[in-house]
Structures are given as structure tokens and as C-alpha cells.
């Protein structure tokens, strides 16, 4: 199997604290990989470095065979690596449809084309139907509920047909019914060929959905394996309960 994303020897210090310490991991193509770890394990930092929001002090990141170390977020997005935010960032003043279209990706030459072309609308309509946001298409995103915003954000990053989607705590602040919806959409997309890397705290969600699961502690991976293996690993238990 080939790895769509590899992280090699990543390190990051904040002041005197080593948030990430020689972290190396790989995400296999076509998987829904989970990234978990106790608080302070560095998973958010690794996530932010991979997605271009932070620069690592040392180490390299490779995506789809190409070195993307230090690439900024926009560039990564254009190469097929996108992410969602824990707080569901959408553009509140734009309509739901516009939120999708603007995420669709276009170059400077397209600037003079229509704001929402028929082709854009068709592309977006498929996602609107899938995520059941069609009735709200012309409403400003500000009018959506929190759960709907999370769905919108998820739908929007799919507009560019990414190869790898990184989800940042997709279940945070979301009711159980919505969590199931999210899971359903991730599975559907996965079946269509998208790879996922999910940072999560909700263990039931992760165990149900992800395989393999990478466990981080003190800035580096300590275990990687199937949900069952992770659940029974003494190393992992140790990390969470502390010694």
C-alpha cells in the first residue's frame, strides 16, 4: 500500500516546551486514519503543521510523493490536501451556495467569469443534495445552526475534490444525531476514494470509524494499529492514564 501522506522527524518547540518531538507517521491511501492522544500529546500541533498553519522547526512532510514541507495552506489546498476547523469556519455573509462555490478553486483568470456559473451550480447542487442543505442554498450561512455549519464546511472542502481531508475534531460541540450524519458522510466519501485523517477526542466515534489509529504521546507516535489493537494495548492505556 502506498502512503499518501508521510511525516518524517517533525519537531516543534513553543518556548521551552517540545510540543512535537521527532514525530514520524504515515497515512495510507484509501484509509480513514485516526489520530488520537491525551491532552498535550501534540496532535493539534502536528495537524497544524501538516495543513500549513504552522511551520515545523525540523522535519519534512510529503504528500502524494511530493515534498510539501513549508507549503502554505492555500497551496496545499490546491494540491488536494484540505482541512476543516474545530469551530466550523464558514463565510457568514455569503450564501450557502456561495460558500461552496468559493471553495471550488479557481485561478486568477477565472476572476472575470460570472459569480456563480451554471457549472458551479451543478457541482454544488450535488453536494447540497447529499448534505441536505439544498433548501438553504440562497440563505446566508450566518443563518445556519452550528451543526449545519459543520456540514457546510465539510461539504465545501469537498468541492475541490481533495485526495486527503483532515478533519479537526468533527464531533466537537455536535449532538449525537449529527455525529451519525458526519460519520455517514465520511464513509460515503471514503467509499468514493478520499483518504481521511481525523483528530478526535471522542473515542467511540474513532473506534467505530477509523482504521488504523495512530496514538500520539509527548509529541511522537507510540502506537499504531486497528481499533481492537489500540484498545488492548498497555502502552496506550499507560499514556492515557499516566504512570
Amino acid at each position, binding site marked *: 500500500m502506498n502512503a499518501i501522506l508521510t511525516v518524517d522527524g517533525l519537531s516543534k518547540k513553543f518556548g521551552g516546551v517540545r510540543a512535537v518531538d521527532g514525530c514520524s507517521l504515515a497515512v495510507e491511501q484509501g484509509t480513514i486514519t485516526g489520530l488520537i492522544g491525551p491532552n498535550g500529546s501534540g496532535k493539534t500541533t502536528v495537524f*497544524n503543521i501538516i495543513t*500549513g*498553519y*504552522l*511551520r515545523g522547526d525540523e522535519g519534512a512532510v510529503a504528500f502524494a510523493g511530493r515534498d510539501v514541507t513549508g507549503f*502554505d*495552506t492555500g497551496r496545499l489546498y490546491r494540491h488536494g490536501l484540505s482541512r476543516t476547523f474545530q469551530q466550523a469556519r464558514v463565510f457568514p455573509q455569503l450564501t450557502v451556495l456561495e460558500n461552496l462555490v468559493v471553495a471550488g478553486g479557481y485561478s486568477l483568470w477565472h476572476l472575470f467569469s460570472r459569480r456563480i456559473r451554471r457549472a458551479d451550480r451543478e457541482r454544488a447542487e450535488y453536494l447540497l443534495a447529499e448534505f441536505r442543505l439544498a433548501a438553504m442554498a440562497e440563505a446566508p450561512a450566518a443563518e445556519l445552526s452550528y451543526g449545519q455549519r459543520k456540514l457546510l464546511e465539510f461539504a465545501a472542502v469537498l468541492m475541490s475534490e481533495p485526495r486527503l481531508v483532515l478533519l479537526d475534531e468533527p464531533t466537537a460541540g455536535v449532538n449525537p444525531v449529527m455525529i451519525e450524519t458526519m460519520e455517514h458522510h465520511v464513509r460515503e466519501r471514503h467509499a468514493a476514494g478520499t483518504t481521511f485523517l481525523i483528530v478526535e477526542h471522542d473515542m467511540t466515534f474513532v473506534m467505530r470509524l477509523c482504521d488504523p489509529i495512530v496514538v500520539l504521546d509527548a509529541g511522537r507516535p507510540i502506537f499504531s494499529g486497528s481499533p481492537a489493537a489500540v484498545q488492548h494495548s498497555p502502552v496506550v492505556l499507560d499514556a492515557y492514564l499516566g504512570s
Partner: protein
Amino acid sequence: MHALIQGVIFGVLTAGVYALMASGQTLIFGIMKVINLAQGAMVILGAYLAYQLFTSFGIDPFLAIPITTVLMFGLGVAIQLVFLRPLRAQDKSELSLLITFAVALLIEGVLSVTWRTTDRSINTSYANASWTILGYQITTVRLWAFLLSLAVLGLLFLLLNRTRFGRAVRAVVQNPESARLLGVEAQRVSAVGFGIGAATAAAAGSVYGLVYPFNPGSHYDLISRLLSIVVLGGMGSVGGAVIAAVIVSTSSAIVASTVSPAWSEMTFFVILILVLLVRPQGLFGTVGRGAI
């Protein structure tokens, strides 16, 4: 060569005043994340106050400082409370620029009405005295201005690092969220911080009035220089502002004495552009790579 060294001396002495003015500005930015475009106008207001105290009561501008700083502290707090506090968080960064710009113009208007637009300067008995050391001229006033600026900056340093209030200020600057959680009242810190920024402007005004002729429109000149200094030093860093003031002031003075005074005005703009091209966060600013 002589001109060059004279320029350097001149620049260093002037730097003190600019450092003082810039420190207030960068402090306000650090606390409130607001660029106070009225800082220059407040300095000029301080200059006019010192001028009036001198011409009406014969009070020496240096001695007037305790009076003007207290007055302007009050004014600064009032401005913050009336014009800046009511802004909603999402509008704040966009609107605060325009609002402080309008306050600057308001101050300019009031000054024009009260004192007319003719140039003024504070002509104390020692205004034109100077010493000549090793063939280099050192104007008395500039030297005193420099020393005074050091003194006030020293006080500011003590305030920020040795008092409880100063600790609160530093907390708010570094991390407003945590500061709030720890019980620091960001609102009160903002108001007092703005007041302190205005007070430093008052002190600088006395000095400014002694050294340069001024009129109500002088604040444009000033604010542009101050902004370049603050950007170079790193927005929010008082130490950075001091060092940047020395750099900008000295470069400007060197250009004035070796090339021509007209071009020295361009120096700070050139420096500003260079900073933005090479190191946008300034010397001591923090790098942000996009919100997370």
C-alpha cells in the same frame, strides 16, 4: 565625514523624543490592538498646552510636564471610553483606524480654532543655546530632550515591569484570553493604557515644542514617522519602538546632513517599505501564520 557624524549625533538626540512618542503608540497597539492615528495630534496638543503654559504663566515646558501629562491622561481615557469602547469586536479593527483618524482631525480642528494656524514654538531662554564639542554641535535643548525622554521611558519601563498594573498590561498584551480568565479587567487596562499613551504624548509634546516649530497640521508629519517606527520595531513592543526610533531617526538625520533635508522626509517611508518587504513583523514583532 564631519557631516555624517554630526548627522548621527543629531539623529540619536532626536531619537529620544521619537522613542517617547512611539512608545505610547506601540503600547496602545499592544493592549488594544488598535493603531492610534491620533497619537501625532496628541503630541501636538501637548506642545500647544506647554506653549500656552509658557506664554501665559512663564512655566518652563519641562516643568509643565507633570501638568500636561495628567491632563492628557484624562483626555486619553475619555477618548477610549467614548469612541473606542462602544465598538463591537468584529468592527473594531476596521473602524478604530478611521475613528482615531477622525479624532486626530478633530484635535487638529480644535487647535486651529483656538490657536490659529501660524507656526508656534516655545522660545525659552535656552532655546538656541548649544555646545560645541570636538567640532560637533550639540544643541542644549535636544540634549535635555534626550535625557528627559530617557527618564520618562525609564519610568514607563518601571511601570510595566515592576507594578501590578504593569503586569496586567503585559498579560493582556501577550494573551488577552488568559488574562481575562485570570481576572484582569481588559476594559480597565485598555482605558488606562490609552491614557498612558496620551500622557507620554503630552511629555513628548513639551519637548517637541521646544525643538521644532509646530502648527495644527504638524501631526501628519509626525504620525507617518511614528507609524514607520512602530512597524519597524514590531507592533506592540516598547523596546522595539525605542530601537527603531534610533534607527529611523539616525538614518533620517544622516540623509538630511549628507544629501538634503527634503529627502530626509522620504527616509522613513523607504524604511517602512523595506521592512514590509523583508520582515513584515518588524524587529521584535511576533509572526502569525494565519489564525487557527
